[in-house]
């Protein structure tokens, strides 16, 4: 080209502003024409779900940190058996952390006329570092918050203790040798539910650390729980300190550092699972929105081939075409991002509203990151899903203006699907940061694709008949399905993935909620009673019966130790991994049982942890140390025999039942002969069965259960549980007076907290399910729409040639229903397979086969796809064939 001509063509600035105008005009018209609406909605859904969930988790994380105030009264606590080294406290102070100390012990409190066992807690002046203590001057009145414990010389007592001690505020009590003034009634303290077993063995008595020496209660060998509390506004300072602490080898197994997540395993588990579910939900939402974007963008670009050809004829270069369509996408993305942000914000607001009652602190404002993530999602979705088909537009040959059939196939071939696939994988990984989740999702989709190719090949290959077989609706539908084989395979794939996502979420949701509800049903006992002698059982049962308290079975309890297996020293398997081994050792001597484990602890399992992620080691921790064992004639509720047999109706002495993980760890086999040391006597028993135990049900659970008659003669005490409602709480005083030696552990606050959390988390999960459902519907609609033009055209021709409305509609119905049936079936298979991995690897649940889904999946697929298909294509028979043909040419 002559230079002059080229120069005259180069007016970049004016050109780009004009191109921008052209792009905006195109956008506006396409928007009005409805062509971009689905694409826009899909983008908005992607941004909404990601922003909403990112906002929620961001605030939740921050809230959890703050909420630690309510659980720990600090950001980190160091605890242990025996006095804690001063060095730890000094190190914390040197690092700029705020510090405080507490000391918990059980003690008798004496008044002039009465006495009772109290859970005493001495606190230093800086206590609490987080949260507030609520106190009041008169029992059962509204309290006031205070940021300290009692001053020296004074104690604060829980309201229940006052009538029991027959005193009032202003009187004095003796704790050990010290006489202290009861100055306030204590209602709550921040770390009450997160305290140790000793903190729950009676009503609270709080005193100042300075008064402890005067009491003379704490002496060498006393059962005392020491705690150092640390707080800082700088998370990094806390992390550094924690790292320093963990690096001190000599403290390992004696002293422990914890944060709020360690404190209540049930709460942490529920929240972790909810977060995983929300994450999974948002992943599905993004994938589905991505598919919807890909489909709508593809259709949009197909409808623009002619447009581009004309533009090219008028002198538009390929790069200008790219500029125009990129502009359209970016402007669309801009509005989608803004809309998505707003909706996302509303979604997180909705989730937070639902969770309001468990968020005890005011939620911190979210950072900017969730918004960035939302916007990036839109960009990645567009790049991966929408841009490829739109970029393929630039390859449209201008000759298409003269020859309409020109190279449509050639253009479609150039769409780089790899972009979409890579984009999806990166998105999934980016959000989840979880290789297991990513691989499960990717392999289920890949599996479906492979399976589908084979099935559809087999299904559609049969009888490659010519023509349309227009005489019969069934044949017409089948030949239509075969003719559009590649398109149908794609449709079935999209439908399958969509239905599969919805099925997975629904099933997971149902299973999670069922499990939670089963874990803590309404009548879960909220008080544990220990240290009961055999002849006190009757008294307690009578007391319960007279006062309408729901009591439960009494379990005998005795301390035992495995000394030999088949005559040899026990040799635990070393396959728990280093970390778990450490945990095992760390906790082996832990007498200072935390309340979250109170159920098991009270049940005589002071060293069992709640079930949860990586809990294997903790569950069997304690290993070969002493553990509390029981004997029973029946299998305890929530226990299942996994191998061997339970002793029958007439049990014989000399048998033992072992929890399965513990048995595995000890490498036990059925029939092994175990030697135990119980009360300095040697007892032998044969392993007759292994048991699964539900550790998180807040019920007495045991690793080792003997058959009746084996160890009964060795003494021991009894343990039981009871459900006492709030209004029955004062009866505790009477009960303790009746059975003074009994220790009652109150876990009602904890149970209530867990139940509330579960209820609210369930609502949040339902909300996200709805979000995914909307995305799914969007995909289905886009997918049906994608094949609409061709169906319209074909059926218009059929009608022109005399095919009746009924024939066409029936054939469409059959075609859609068949596609839906196949998609539903494949989705069911995919969902069950994915669930198997998800439940095992991500949610730590036991997988169970969902029989009812097998007929439901295909049926649902059939109904939804047929419904949507008929709804979208009903125009085929309603508009006159002439109009259809005119519209499409």
């Amino acid at each position, binding site marked *: 080209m002559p230079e002059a001509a080229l120069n005259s063509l180069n007016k970049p600035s004016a050109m780009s502003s004009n191109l921008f105008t052209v792009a905006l005009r195109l956008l506006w018209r396409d928007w009005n024409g409805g062509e971009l609406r689905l694409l826009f909605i899909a983008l908005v859904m992607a941004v909404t779900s990601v922003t909403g969930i990112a906002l929620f988790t961001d605030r939740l994380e921050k809230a959890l940190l703050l909420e630690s105030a309510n659980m720990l009264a600090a950001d980190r606590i160091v605890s242990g058996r025996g006095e804690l080294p001063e060095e730890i406290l000094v190190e914390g102070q040197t690092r700029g952390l705020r510090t405080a100390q507490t000391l918990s012990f059980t003690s008798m409190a004496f008044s002039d006329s009465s006495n009772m066992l109290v859970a005493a807690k001495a606190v230093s002046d800086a206590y609490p570092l987080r949260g507030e203590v609520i106190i009041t001057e008169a029992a059962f009145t509204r309290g006031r918050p205070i940021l300290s414990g009692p001053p020296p010389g004074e104690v604060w007592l829980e309201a229940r203790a006052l009538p029991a001690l027959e005193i009032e505020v202003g009187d004095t009590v003796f704790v050990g040798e010290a006489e202290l003034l009861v100055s306030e009634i204590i209602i709550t303290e921040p770390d009450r539910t997160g305290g140790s077993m000793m903190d729950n063995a009676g009503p609270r008595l709080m005193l100042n650390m300075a008064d402890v020496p005067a009491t003379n209660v704490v002496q060498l060998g006393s059962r005392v729980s020491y705690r150092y509390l640390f707080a800082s506004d700088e998370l990094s300072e806390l992390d550094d300190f924690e790292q320093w602490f963990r690096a001190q080898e000599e403290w390992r197994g004696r002293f422990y550092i914890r944060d709020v997540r360690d404190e209540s395993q049930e709460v942490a588990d529920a929240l972790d699972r909810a977060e995983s579910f929300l994450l999974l939900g948002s992943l599905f939402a993004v994938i589905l929105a991505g598919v919807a974007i890909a489909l709508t963008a593809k259709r949009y670009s197909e409808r623009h081939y002619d447009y581009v050809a004309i533009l090219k004829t008028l*002198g538009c270069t390929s790069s200008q075409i790219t500029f125009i369509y990129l502009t359209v996408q970016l402007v669309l993305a801009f509005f989608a991002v803004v809309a998505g942000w707003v909706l996302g914000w509303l979604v997180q607001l909705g989730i937070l509203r639902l969770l309001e009652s468990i968020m005890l602190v005011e939620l911190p404002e979210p950072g900017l990151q969730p918004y960035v993530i939302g916007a990036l999602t839109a960009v990645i979705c567009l790049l991966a899903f929408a841009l490829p088909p739109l970029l393929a537009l630039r390859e449209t040959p201008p000759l298409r203006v003269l020859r309409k059939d020109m190279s449509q196939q050639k253009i479609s071939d150039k769409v780089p699907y790899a972009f979409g696939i890579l984009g999806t994988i990166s998105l999934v990984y980016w959000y989840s940061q979880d290789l297991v989740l990513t691989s499960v999702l990717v392999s289920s989709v890949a599996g479906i694709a492979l399976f589908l190719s084979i099935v559809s090949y087999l299904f559609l290959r049969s009888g490659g008949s010519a023509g349309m077989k227009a005489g019969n609706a069934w044949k017409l539908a089948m030949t239509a399905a075969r003719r559009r084989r590649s398109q149908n395979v794609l449709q079935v794939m999209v439908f399958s993935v969509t239905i599969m996502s919805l099925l997975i979420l629904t099933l997971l949701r149902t299973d999670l909620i069922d499990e939670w509800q089963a874990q803590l049903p309404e009548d879960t006992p909220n008080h544990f009673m220990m240290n009961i002698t055999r002849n006190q059982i009757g008294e307690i049962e009578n007391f319960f019966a007279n006062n309408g308290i729901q009591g439960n079975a009494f379990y005998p309890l005795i301390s035992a130790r495995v000394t030999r297996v088949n005559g040899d020293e026990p040799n635990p398997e070393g396959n728990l991994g280093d970390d778990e081994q450490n945990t095992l050792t760390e906790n082996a001597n832990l007498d200072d049982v935390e309340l979250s484990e109170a159920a098991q602890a009270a049940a005589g399992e002071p060293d069992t942890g709640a079930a949860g992620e990586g809990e294997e080691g903790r569950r069997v921790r304690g290993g070969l140390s002493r553990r509390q064992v029981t004997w029973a004639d029946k299998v305890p509720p929530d226990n299942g025999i996994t191998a061997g047999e339970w002793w029958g109706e007439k049990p014989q002495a000399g048998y033992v039942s072992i929890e399965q993980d513990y048995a595995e760890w000890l490498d036990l086999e059925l029939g092994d002969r175990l030697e135990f040391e119980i009360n300095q006597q040697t007892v032998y028993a044969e392993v007759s069965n292994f048991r699964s135990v539900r550790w998180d049900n807040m019920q007495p659970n045991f690793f080792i259960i003997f058959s009746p008659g084996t160890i009964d003669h060795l003494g021991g005490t009894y343990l039981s549980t009871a459900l006492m409602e709030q209004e029955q709480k004062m009866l505790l005083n009477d009960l303790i007076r009746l059975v003074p030696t009994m220790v009652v552990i109150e876990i009602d606050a904890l149970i209530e907290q867990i139940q509330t959390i579960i209820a609210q988390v369930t609502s949040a999960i339902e909300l996200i399910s709805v979000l995914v459902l909307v995305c799914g519907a969007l995909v289905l609609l886009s997918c049906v729409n994608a094949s609409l033009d061709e169906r319209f055209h074909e059926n218009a021709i059929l009608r022109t040639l005399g095919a009746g409305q009924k024939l066409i509609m029936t054939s469409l119905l059959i075609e859609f229903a068949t596609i839906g049936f196949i998609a539903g079936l494949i989705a069911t298979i995919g969902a069950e397979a994915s669930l198997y991995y998800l439940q095992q690897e991500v949610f730590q649940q036991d997988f169970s086969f969902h029989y009812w889904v097998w007929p439901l999946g295909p049926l649902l697929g059939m109904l939804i796809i047929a419904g949507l298909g008929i709804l979208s294509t009903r125009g085929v028979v309603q508009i006159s064939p002439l109009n259809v043909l005119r519209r499409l040419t």
Partner: protein
Amino acid sequence: MIETRNLVKSVDTSEGLLTILKGITLKVNEGEIVAIVGASGSGKSTLLGLMAGLDGATSGDVLLDDNNLTEMDEEQRAMLRGQLVGFVFQSFQLLPSLTALENVMLPIELKGDDQARDKAKQLLQRVGLEERWHHYPNQLSGGEQQRVAIARAFATQAQILFADEPTGNLDTATGKKVIELLFELNREFSTTLVLVTHDERLAQRCNRVIKLVAGEIAEDTTNTVEESVSA
């Protein structure tokens, strides 16, 4: 103005290589009005597409205002089209999402001209559609759409105009009006016009008629000026 040298176009079909144009050599001078006629499948539209740079030849050369199209890639050809060439098609090829005015503005805007709106309005007035400028193609009749297409073709004051069966989709009376308009504007803008047509009467109004038979030039006749003007 336009020159083709031994132009060959072949395409692959399921039955083997099909040669549509078999060595076409011709020259169209500036200001000439040339009709390409021939039976269906004779290669008329293919020749038009090659001369306009809408497609690439298998062999041979096409020179458009001394620019050899066969040496250019699609990007360069597109820029040259924007600069030199206008089109009128049988199926109008208006962008359905743009109004009549916007359709005419489009090529002017693509050239980077800020006066697009005014120029487009003038042209629409010239083709008698000043009242319909805000209408979309589907709100216009076939004749009106073709008039918008003609306005668009002259919008950039292209030196060469290619028309593919411009009356093919119109009834006789409307077709006649559209042709009158096309010729009038052609005179006004002194454009070189190459049109493909089946319409013998239309062909006779052109300076020159090239008849294609099976991809070869069978006849190349020049009409007298009187004939082409008076017809």
